[in-house]
Structures are given as structure tokens and as C-alpha cells.
């Protein structure tokens, strides 16, 4: 059965271009032009992924997310304009899973959707496998060991924790706040500079060229993303 995508977007041109590309990629697409309509469809059709535009005529995108999260854990990908970094963060912290900045290419959209859909496939299973690869870096979760080529890399407990949180969400953006909360705890959610220092150290230990990271990517103004291969 094809995955069902709910597109909540008021602009007909964008809808028609997404319809063209998603249907040819083998997705079932249902469309809504307003937030209310979208919420109704989300309840009746139970989609696998929701694509949500932030500039809806009837309600704020963040309202849609909050209401949706009241009864559904469906992955939500937010479509937003550039320069709305604060909105993005607010939406992500309110429960959205990822975002795309307009204008975007279909390639990017499909990649995000694949990550989102993978979450629906039992997420914890991947972790049970015990081993992840980031290029020539191998993370052995069971033994708590990280290898770069043939050499073992020594991570501090916090660095390791940070890495595992990113691994758990690989391919998906994680906001500063989410990372701080998961790694350090709820009372550290405002300590962005410390997070940056740890990310810097982690990059220096894992990346070939820490100034041009290939795996630990920065999402400007939002958070970090671990590249998914």
C-alpha cells in the first residue's frame, strides 16, 4: 500500500507541482487548502506524513500542529519561507518533525519524507542493530565504542550522549532546545553556547574537515542534523 501524504497548502500552483512529483514517486496524495480542512482530513484519512504550509489563510501553522499533536503522532514536515527561523524553531518545538525552506527542490522533499516515513517503521529497531556508520566512523552502541577507521575515538560521556541523540534522529533536524533537553536535562535548555562547543569538539573528533562537516550539519538558526545516508 502506498504511503498517504496529506498536503495542507493554500497555493494551487505549489499544490499542482507537488501533486505531479509526489504521485509519480508512488505516494497517495490528499490535499487541503485550509488548516481546518487539513485537520479534518488528518482525522478521517490517517495520513503517514503531513506536509504543512505555514502561511495558511485561516489559522497559524503552529496552531495546526498543536491541535494535531493532541491526538496524532503523525510526522509533520513544515514548509516555510527563508528568514522565518524563529517560526521554524517554534514549530519544531511544538511538535513538527522537520522543515523545508521554500523554494525547495523535489530531491530535498523526498529525502525529508523518507526520513519521516522511516520513523513510522519502528524507530528503535535501528538502534537494536547496535552499529551505525558515518562514512569511516563506526558507532557501536552496545559496546559504547566509536571507531574512526581503525582507531578508537574517545568521547566524553556528554559527547557520546549528544551523538546518540543525533543518531536516534538521523536525517532529521533537532533543535538546540531539544538537544539540550535530552542531553543535559530540562534546566539547560537555554545554554546554546555550550551545545556549540560540544558540537565543535565532536566534529573535531569525528569529521575529516571539521570546518566543512559532512555529517554533523548545522541548520542555521535552528539546530543540527546528522546526515542520513
Amino acid at each position, binding site marked *: 500500500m502506498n504511503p498517504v501524504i496529506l498536503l495542507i497548502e493554500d497555493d494551487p500552483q505549489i499544490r499542482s507541482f507537488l501533486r505531479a512529483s509526489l504521485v509519480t514517486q508512488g505516494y497517495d496524495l490528499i490535499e487541503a487548502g485550509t488548516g481546518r480542512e487539513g485537520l479534518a482530513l488528518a482525522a478521517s484519512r490517517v495520513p503517514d506524513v503531513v506536509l504543512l504550509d505555514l502561511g495558511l489563510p485561516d489559522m497559524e501553522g503552529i496552531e495546526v500542529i498543536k491541535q494535531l499533536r493532541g491526538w496524532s503522532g503523525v510526522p509533520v514536515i513544515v514548509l516555510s519561507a527563508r*528568514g522565518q527561523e524563529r517560526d521554524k524553531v517554534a514549530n519544531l518545538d511544538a511538535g513538527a518533525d522537520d522543515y523545508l525552506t521554500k523554494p525547495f527542490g523535489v530531491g530535498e522533499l523526498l529525502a525529508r519524507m523518507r526520513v519521516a516515513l522511516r520513523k513510522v517503521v519502528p524507530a528503535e529497531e535501528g538502534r537494536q542493530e547496535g552499529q551505525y556508520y558515518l562514512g569511516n566512523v563506526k558507532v557501536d552502541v552496545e559496546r559504547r565504542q566509536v571507531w574512526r577507521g581503525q582507531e578508537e575515538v574517545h568521547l566524553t*560521556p556528554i559527547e557520546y550522549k549528544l551523538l546518540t541523540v543525533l543518531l536516534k534522529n538521523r536525517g532529521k533536524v533537532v533543535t538546540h532546545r531539544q538537544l539540550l533537553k535530552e542531553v*543535559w536535562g530540562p534546566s539547560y535548555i537555554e545554554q*546554546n*553556547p555550550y551545545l*556549540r*562547543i560540544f558540537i565543535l569538539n565532536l566534529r573535531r573528533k569525528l569529521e575529516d574537515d571539521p570546518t*566543512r562537516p559532512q555529517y554533523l550539519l548545522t541548520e*542555521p*538558526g535552528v539546530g543540527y542534523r546528522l546526515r542520513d545516508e
Partner: protein
Amino acid sequence: MPDPGPGVAQSIQPEPATSGGERLLVCLDPSPFSMPLIRATKRIADSQQAKWYALYVETPAHDRLPLENQGHVAQALYQAAKLGAQAVKVSGFRIGDEILVFARENGVSKIFVGKPYARRWRRFLGTSLVDHLIWNCGPIDVFVISGEGEAAAPAAAPGPKPRRLLKEYLLAAAGVSLCTGLGFILFPYLALTNLAMIYLLTVVIISSFLARGPAIFSSFFSVAAFAFFFVPEYFSFAIASTEYAITLLVMLLVSLMVSGLTARVRHQARAAREQERQTAALFEMSQNLTAINSLEELLQVAAEQLARTFDSRVAILMPETGEKLEIRAGYPFADEDVREGMVARWAFKHGLLAGAGTGTLSAVKSIYLPLIASQHAIGVLRLESSQPGRVLDAESLRLLEALGSQVALAVEHENLSRQTQGAQLQMEAERMRNTLLSSVSHDLRTPLTVIAGSASTLLEGEETLDSFTKHELAQSIFEEARRLDRLVHNLLEMSRLQSGEAMFHKEWYVLEEVIGSALGQLDPQLHDHPVSINLPTDLPLVRIDALLLERVVINLLENSIKYTPPGTPLEISARVEDQELLVALADRGPGLPKGEEERIFEKFYQVSPGSARGAGLGLTICRSIIEAHGGRIRAANREDGGALFSFTIPLGEGAPRLDKPLPETAEKN
């Protein structure tokens, strides 16, 4: 009409008499009759289209005039200046001579004097002023204009403060008596003529300290005492010989002349002091008013200086919306007397001096001086002495007027320059808008043309095009769309930065991450340019808006990519220098045109107009952002070829340390 305010100069520069151009002179005196005289002269001057002067000769007697009359003089001069005369005041003893000297120096052809006043000025070597003028005027015509009845003539000036005068007479008498006592002691040793000298000395001393009356009195008294006590027959006014009579006569004449001369010297010294005070005050005011940036400041400075100069409370009132006068600067008067406001309005409306001590509406506590610029009042100066009941003397009134006109001119100048500045700003904005429109429309149309063309080709040639061409067309649509997006983004960023709406979200950031993120976003475009990065690992954190700083790095990189040949390397480096983080981006391209290194940061500047892509906004945005962070951005040519862009970010206090991160929390599974 030149300067509407009366000139303060004691004498004015002689101007050559122009042939044909009549020059009239009206002589003022301290009476209300001066006003009709001025009006009459004005009518004649108008009918002959003549330049005219209003002259007041200030004699030592001026000080003894009642304040009301002193006010008449000030008012008359002021009014004459308003009616187009050149109002002048000179100091002198002999009114007639001063008038004639002034008339000759200024090429005056007709002199107007008031008839009733010949009576008041009649004591002029036994002749009246009019007589004196007529006898000595030479080629100048003298016109005598009759007044409007004797009622207008003021009563003869009562002596100033009779009590003080009495005291001075007593002092003079005491001085002469003392001298007489001394004479008795010295009588056996001195010749009669030397005794007379002691009396003369006494007269000189008395007349240099006391008023003229007591001085003359002392002359007569000393001659009488000398004749009575020391000239034979002793203790009698009878004089023994004609020789003694001559001695006494000479003594009387000499002492009278001495007392007169001394009084003149004193008057001139006082006039000089007054002149100096006025010059100093005027100079100070003009100095103070030059270094002023705003109207508010100007009014404040002017009010403060006036308050100092006149030891008074001073406020400057200007009409706000409507006709209502509001205090704009100076002492915040809160009036219980509604008349104050009425007098202020009257002075403003009529452009005339009014209030205490001016002879017009003088029942209030303050003096109101209209500030006149371009022949209409722009405000009113209010001045109230800090000592209750004290009014300004005529001299101070004149100074006040002169300072007032200086302030008025400065205000007008300020207003004009503000208008000019506003107009210039508007023109600049207009020019910017036009440049923006043409530049943006060009830059928007180019990618749109490519997109529309490629898309329509794809539509038309669906069957004929091979798959490679189709891919090419789709690719160019995609790239042009990206380009449009960047352009629009830069435009929005620019307008946000320029309108001051940009909110800066500054946090402590690692520079390495900002550069890395910028490089990551430009990945596809950087294929042709190897980038070498040289960052010390221990760079301190900087407090920045990372998104904006990332924009700086992206724009600088895009700029380099745009202007350098493919394959040439780019180098990014950073170091700490003088409490600043210095970031540099160097390329190996053709470099910058000489002398244009700063201009490239200007809006819409392009090295070769039209050829390059982008609206020339990228570097301007960089500069705005860096300056908003308190840093500087520069461009230069490298000695061994290529361009070097660098910017600085000040290092803030309290940066989180790289080597002291958060204490690691206990490990949890």
C-alpha cells in the same frame, strides 16, 4: 530693506553718497513725539524712494531721564528700524554737532527735527538745536516738523533721585569745607596762587566722583570760600585789588571747565564700558550660536546666555500649532497674571517691543521682545529680571534687541538649513529608489526571462527535443530560480537592515561553525574553487547574530566566485587582533579597480556595470551587518594578485570559554 533690527554701532561706516539717491536723517529725542516724526519722515522717504536714517544722540543727560523716556528712545529706534530706517545711536555731548558729523559722514541731504523739542534742547551755547543745525548745516537742508500739540511734550525731566543728589551736594560742600580747613593750616606757608591750586584739586576730585550739578556747585562754592577766607579783605567778599578779582575769575572758569571735562570723561568711559559689554555679549552669542545642531539646542543656548547677560529669567516662546505661543526653551514661567500672555501675543502680533520698562503695555513684570526674521515675527523673547521691580535701562534694551535679532537670524538659518537638508535627503532617497527599481527590474527580469523561455521551449518541443536538451532546459530553470531566490532574499534583507527593522539575535557562537554552515550552503557553487581554511583551534567565541554573519560570509564568497576565474583558490583565515576577531577572505582573481576599494560597498555598485549578475547589494549588506556588530569591513588588493576582503568583530566580555564547558552531568543510560 536690510537688517530690520536697529544697529547697535555707536557710529556706522560712512557710505559714499550716491548721486541722485536722497538720504534723509530724522533726529530722535526721548519723547513720544519721535513716533509721529518717524512716520512723517518715512512718508517723505517713501515718496522720494530715499534711504533714511534715524539718529539718537545720547548725552550724559540720557541717564538722568525717567525710564519712561528712555523707553521712548528704544521704542522709537526700534520702530524706525522696522519702518526701513537705519537706526543708529551715537554718544556725544553736543547733540547738534553729532548730528551734523553723522549727516556729513553718511551723505545725508535732508535733516528732519521736531519743533517742540527745540525747547528742551535749547541750551546749546545759548542757541536752540534747530538754530544750531540751520547755522552749521552747510548744503544740507533742515526741516522742522511740528509736533501734535504741546500736550505730547513730556514734563521736564525731574532730577534723578533727589535724595541722592542732596547727599552729593552735601558731600561737595563737605569737600570744599575740608579744603578750606586745610587752607587755614597751610595759609602761613603757601602763596595765594598755590592755595587756589588746592581748591582746584578739590574741584577735580569732587567732579570725578559726583554728578555734574554738585561738581558745578563745588566750583562756585570753592571760589566763594577762597574769596571769603583767603583773599584780602579776609572774612569778607570784598576784594582788595583787581589782580585778586582776575585770579578769582580765572579760578572760577578753570574749575567750571574742569568739572565739565571730568564729567565728559566719565561719560565716555561709561559709554566705552557699555560698548565693550555689548560687543562681548554679541560676540559670545554669535560664538555660541554657531556650534549648534538643532533648533532646540539653539533656543536653549540663546535663552541661557540671555539669562546670564541680563541676570534675568528668560524664556523663548514660539507659536505652536495654531496661534498659541508656547515656551520652547528657557525658564518655565507659570503665570498667574493673564496679562503676561496677552502682552506676549501683542508683541508677537505687532512685532514691537512691549512690557515692563518699555513704555508699551508696561504694567506687566516681563519684557517681551519679538524675534523678527524675514520681516515677520517667528517668536517672542520673554525676560523678567531676577530682582523684582528692576527694569532694564535703555542701553540694556538696545543690547537685548541686538541679541534678539541675532537669535532670530540664527533660528531662521537653522530652519532654512533643515529644510534644505530635508530636501536633499528626499532627493537622495528618490535617486536611490530609482536606481533600485531599474537595477532590480533588470536583475529580476533576466532570470525570469530564462525561466519563461526554457519552460516554454519544453512545452512547445515536448516531442522534438531530445532528453539531453530537456534536461539542460530544466536545469537552467532550476538554477535561475535559485538565483532569483537569492536576489529576493538579499533585497528583503537589505530593506530590513536599512529600515532598522532588523532584529539582531546575538548569541555566543563558534566562528568555525558559522563559516562551515556558509560553505555548506554554497557547496554546489564552490565546485570550481578550492577553499583553504586556516582557523586557529582556540579562537574565542563571539557574540553575533549567526544568521546575519553567515549572510556576510556567503555574500563575500559569492562575490569572489562571481569575479574570479574557475579553478582559482579561495582562502579563509581568522585571528585575534587588538581585542577583535579579524576574518579574511582572499582570492586570486583580477583584484579590485584602484581607488574603488571602498566604493564596492556602496549600494548597487558593480565593478563593471551591467556585466555582472546580482543587484550589487551583497557587499552593501555585508557592510550593514558588520557595522551593526560594531566591526569594520574592508577590501584591498593583495600584493601578489587577487582581492582581500576582511572584517572585524569586537570580542565581548564574558565569552563562554572553550576549555571550560558546562560541567558534564552524570551519565544516564
